[in-house]
């Protein structure tokens, strides 16, 4: 199983992902939390790269970093005065819930690593073939889920407009970036 020769990139990427994820959920300043999401997503993209899923590296950066994150930051800017960053940003239950999550994570990890995974292979197909196959699948075998995903996005868009649009004034800030979403959807 050691066709990927070095452990080092994996360690760096996981550390980046998990470390910045921890900062995201713990840091008091919410805007900082938003910015810390960037290295986290990049770390995940790095892990995808290690898994030879090149297409998804690009998608991850484009969608998450490019669109979702920007959207989040807009919303954060809009509402940042609401929460006082000098007060605790977590609720009273944070310690027991933290313990619960640690135990649960350990349990899940133990079960998953203990499982005998069947037909584990080391075949790595060239990335470009993967992407082409994916494109073919999306207009062939998996056309229906693809279309339904677009209906899902449409419904989300309509819903977001309905909810966000105030009854009198024109649409508030988040909307322009929302409209950018379908374009950045992987085709």
């Amino acid at each position, binding site marked *: 199983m050691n066709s990927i020769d070095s452990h080092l990139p994996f360690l760096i990427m996981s550390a980046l992902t998990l470390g910045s994820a921890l900062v995201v959920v713990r840091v008091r300043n919410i805007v900082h939390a938003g910015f810390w999401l960037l290295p986290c997503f990049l770390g*995940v993209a790095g892990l995808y790269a290690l898994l030879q899923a090149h297409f998804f590296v690009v998608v991850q950066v484009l969608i998450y970093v490019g669109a979702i994150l920007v959207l989040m930051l807009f919303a954060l800017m809009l509402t940042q005065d609401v*929460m006082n960053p000098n007060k605790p940003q977590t609720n009273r239950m944070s310690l027991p819930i933290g313990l619960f999550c640690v135990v649960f994570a350990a349990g899940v990890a133990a079960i998953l690593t203990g499982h005998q995974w069947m037909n584990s292979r080391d075949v790595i197909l060239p990335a470009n073939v993967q992407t082409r196959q994916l494109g073919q699948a999306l207009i062939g075998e998996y056309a229906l889920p693809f279309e339904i995903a677009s209906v899902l996005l449409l419904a989300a868009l309509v819903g977001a407009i309905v909810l966000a649009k105030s009854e009198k004034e024109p649409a508030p800030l988040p909307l322009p970036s929302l409209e950018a979403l379908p374009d950045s959807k992987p085709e």
Partner: protein
Amino acid sequence: MNLSDFLVVSALLFMIGAYGAFTRKNAIAVILSIELMLNAANLNFLSFWRFLHPSSMEPQIFVLVGITLAAAEAAVGLAVILNIYRDFGTINVEDISLLKG
């Protein structure tokens, strides 16, 4: 570096996300945490694809669906929060509890 390593990373990422979703007061931070959870699931799919079924198309479709969902959820979620902000003047999840019992 093998499948188990990736699975452990994704399990940890998932639980960190869950922890954030359960404890952050700020509703937007809750959405950020949920994005982490979705990423963990995607990472799982791609690891299984890479190590177990490299010729299968299903996990990739699922990852695409997951990413689409993340985008849609971000859009709707932020609109919902904006609405809350207008009505309540706060986005602290703890303070929004008119409905109970």
